[in-house]
């Protein structure tokens, strides 16, 4: 029997080779050659190395090392080569902080247009339409222009709109206000946060309810899209001179999240730009599709969406029209769901119309909305009636309520627009702009085209009342609920 001290003196260098205690190793490396029993000074256990353990204890040769290096490089190279693009993007993002966003290819220079389906002079005559459009011309004061108003004016009138009345902002001026930070500063000064926001990955639009902000997410983009802006139209942000609408669209595709507050305009803008592509990957790596977007639009109580739930109806109708065109925008199952949803909207608005032709904000309640009427603000009924007429103008007849229902609604909007002063219209511009657009679309035209023709036969006269009103018009002060 030996004591620990005896064992320690017996040869400390041996123990590390066999039992694993490295603390007594004075010189490295040591190649084990001897077969005699050795003792670990720490565990005090005798270890009899077998030929296997000795062989295992030998150093891996340079050849083995080279071999492992070779297969390491080879294995990772092969894994990278055969890896799915998403997998590689994920690795690049996580390990090297590389931008892994797969950009969506935009297949067109100009956005698609959802064409109106009906020319119904019996519903709205040229004179009535002209009267309505006269009221919804963008006679905004140049100072402190509200992006939300400009966006609505632009989607109504289009980028090419021109007016003989110099007080009215042309489509070009409206577009420049939204796309050029310099023009924005001219209107708001430098103290307001820019509307166009520079990001490392592109240009985003500030959307909030503070001064100079676009109210809704992607409303800026959808409005310019509906207005027919070109993809290469320059966008001058505070720090970039090389951005275009494409840059903003790309950023919108990148930062879109399905469960954000509002998706109505996102669905519309994406549909008009990237269809027939029906699926894409967002900046969060999620696979988005128009199926998902339409599911999201159908979710929740009908009236909870923007503008008493009418915008989601318009966007869903637009998706159906895109699917009619490209056949693969929506899956068959989702198309059926959307169709059923729109049929239910049709039934509700059939039941909820008031005798004078307007729809209330609680139109999804159907008959009970009429039987137990709520007290609606003026703007709420303007919103509901104008917006419903707008989506019906692009809807097939199967989704229409009875003819008489549409006729009454049309008469109501014409009368309401005519009866209200220019100031009231300007105060509620965002809501009345939909009325103007709806009226034109029921004549299978656009406000821009109609007005251009109209002014050929009804040229602007300087003494016209609206113009003088416009020069003195107060800044719009509506609550911008739209």
């Amino acid at each position, binding site marked *: 029997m030996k004591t620990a001290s005896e064992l320690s003196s017996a040869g400390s260098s041996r123990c590390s080779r066999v039992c*694993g*205690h490295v603390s007594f190793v004075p010189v490295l490396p040591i*190649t084990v050659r001897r077969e005699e029993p050795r003792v670990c000074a720490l565990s005090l256990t005798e270890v009899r190395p077998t030929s296997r353990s000795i062989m295992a204890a030998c150093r891996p040769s340079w050849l083995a090392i080279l071999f*492992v290096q070779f297969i390491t490089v080879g294995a990772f190279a092969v894994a990278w080569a055969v*890896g799915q693009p*998403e997998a*590689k993007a994920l690795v690049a993002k996580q390990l090297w902080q590389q931008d892994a966003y797969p950009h969506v290819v935009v297949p067109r220079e100009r956005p698609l247009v959802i064409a109106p389906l009906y020319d119904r002079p019996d519903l709205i005559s040229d004179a009535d339409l002209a009267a309505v459009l006269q009221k919804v011309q963008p006679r905004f004061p140049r100072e402190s222009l509200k992006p939300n108003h400009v966006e609505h004016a632009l989607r109504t009138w289009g980028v090419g709109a021109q007016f003989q009345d110099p007080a009215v902002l042309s489509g070009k001026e409206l577009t420049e206000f939204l796309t050029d930070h310099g023009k924005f500063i001219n209107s708001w000064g430098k103290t307001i946060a820019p509307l166009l926001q520079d990001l490392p990955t592109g240009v985003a639009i500030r959307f909030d309810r503070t001064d100079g902000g676009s109210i809704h997410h992607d409303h800026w983009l959808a409005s310019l899209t509906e207005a027919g802006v070109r993809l290469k139209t320059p966008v001058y942000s505070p720090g970039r001179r090389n951005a275009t609408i494409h840059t903003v669209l790309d950023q919108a595709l990148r930062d879109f999240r399905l469960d954000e507050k509002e998706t109505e305009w996102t669905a519309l803008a994406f549909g008009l730009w990237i269809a027939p592509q029906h699926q894409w990957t967002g900046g969060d790596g*999620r696979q988005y*599709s128009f199926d998902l977007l339409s599911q999201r639009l159908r979710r929740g*109580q009908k009236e909870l969406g923007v503008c008493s739930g009418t915008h989601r109806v318009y966007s869903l109708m637009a998706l159906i029209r895109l699917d009619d065109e490209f056949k693969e925008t929506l899956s068959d199952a989702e198309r059926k769901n959307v169709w059923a949803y729109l049929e239910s909207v049709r039934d509700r608005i059939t039941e909820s119309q008031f005798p004078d032709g307007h729809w209330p904000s609680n139109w999804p309640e159907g008959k009970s909305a009429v039987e137990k009427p709520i007290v609606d603000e003026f703007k709420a009924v303007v919103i509901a009636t104008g917006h419903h007429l707008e989506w019906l103008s692009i809807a097939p007849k199967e989704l229409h309520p009875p003819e008489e229902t549409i006729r009454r609604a049309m008469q109501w909007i014409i009368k309401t627009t005519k009866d209200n002063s220019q100031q009231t219209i300007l105060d509620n511009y965002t809501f009345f702009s939909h009325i103007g657009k709806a009226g034109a679309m029921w004549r299978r035209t656009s406000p821009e085209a109609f007005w251009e023709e109209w002014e050929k036969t009804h040229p602007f006269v300087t003494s016209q009342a609206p113009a003088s009103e416009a020069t003195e018009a107060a800044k719009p002060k509506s609550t911008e609920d739209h």
Partner: protein
Amino acid sequence: MSTLTPPPREAVVPESFFERRDADVSVLQDRIPPEYQLTRRAVMLIALLGLLFTICSYQPLWHSDLWGHLSYGRWIWAAKAVPQVEPLMPLAQGVRFVDTAWLSQLIGWGIVSKCGVAGAQFMYAGLITFAFTCVLGVVYRRTGSLIATLAAFVTFLWGAYQQLLVVRPQLAGLACFCLVIVVATASVGRRWHWWAIPVTFALWANLHGSFLVGLGLLGAMAIGRVFDVTWRTGRLGAALRDSEARRLVLLTQLAAIAVLLNPYGIGLYGEVFAVTGNPNLEDLFEWEPLSLRMGQGQAAATITIGLFLLYRMSPRRVTCGEVLAIIGLGLATLWTSRMINWWAPLAAYYVGVHLAAIRWKNFGRPIEERSRSGLNTVVAVGLSWIFFAFTPFGVTLLHGQPQDAKLLAKRYEKSVSPLTPLGTTAHLLAEPPVGQIFNTYEWGDYLTWAGPPGMQVFVNSHAHLVPQEVWRDYMSISAAGGNWEQKLDQYSVNTVVVDVAQRAALIKALKLKKDVWELSYEDGVGAVFRRLKPL
């Protein structure tokens, strides 16, 4: 030569031959091969591990993660493919899903579908026992000290106790990690290391996403060894020639390669980093930083103080790899308490080896031949069988499942945690909800597993797959925070399923909205509310 000897005419048997005698022990031979003979201490350790196995086998199955993993396993089995996007949460449609635990889920589903919950309990106990066996085994083999091994046992159990309560693929990762500890802490290579490490990592990469911790451990040991050798010799070349440094570096490389053998290929590496950085996880208790207010924080603090004392007194040289691994995992544990699962076994190992070294330094210890014997082996095998036979799985295997449905239900009820929504699920099965439901995070898994087929759960325990916006809304609704009712409308939720223990505020708020919500079921565990006018 014998052929030349004539046979005796008559065999003469001595009379004493027929006398009854006791066996002469001195001439009996132990027929069990020496390598299978055990010492008494080894038998005691086996008894300890057997006891641990039996106790774990009776541990009720946790009501959260496990059922979600089984549901994914069921999905994989039905689809005959691993998911590419999240398949079970409608609100997470299209979210890319790198299922780092697909193999665990599939195996779990296979075992539970064949053997019932007893199979899951067996799996759970087996993995924990294997992990402990690795750590205790390596401590005992290095030190031969029963006390040091018991200290390692206590350290491991105390440190990782809370993490061990939940049955989930992480346990498979823990088992792999403990095996890697055996290899990484060995300062001399064995042949089996060269195949065991790649095989372990190839499995681990498919069982759970924690393989990175194992790679880190091997890497830390390799770096530490290179540093140690360079420091002692003053030459970097010595480190390059050092067999242990070479072995550890090559093993790390082989492990990294083996990880690539998974259905997602190289993307698995990216996913593991992405998951740990997911902001949703910040709201989960187990991902919070370790604090002294937590039970496991107190355990970690005590173990750390103990380690300080041991290091102060230990004659054993502390290697650089050891420092890197212990401190690295310790910092990770401070970052997120869940990492204690990996720190505890490593700390346990070092507690064991340093305690043994201190003991022998101070008290000395004579060398003695340990009394190995076949009898001990027989006792160990017998004990193992007894421990196995007394587990629910053993009973099921030996006697089959009870035929009586009531008995079966009663056994099932005893096998799951008291917080499992059994009554709630039965109610939902009787009256299936229409459309989207709102459920608490902890119950999403069980409702998916045992609820009506196709039920649209709001979230489950795979929080990292839930879109951030949905997760924020979930947190707001579950706490009955601002606009909770509007958010339920927004998601078209027609049914709310909540637990009583943690969502009392939401239950109270729902009860106050009698014109919109109706209480359709309530027991001591949970409650179900339904919208009076479904959306």
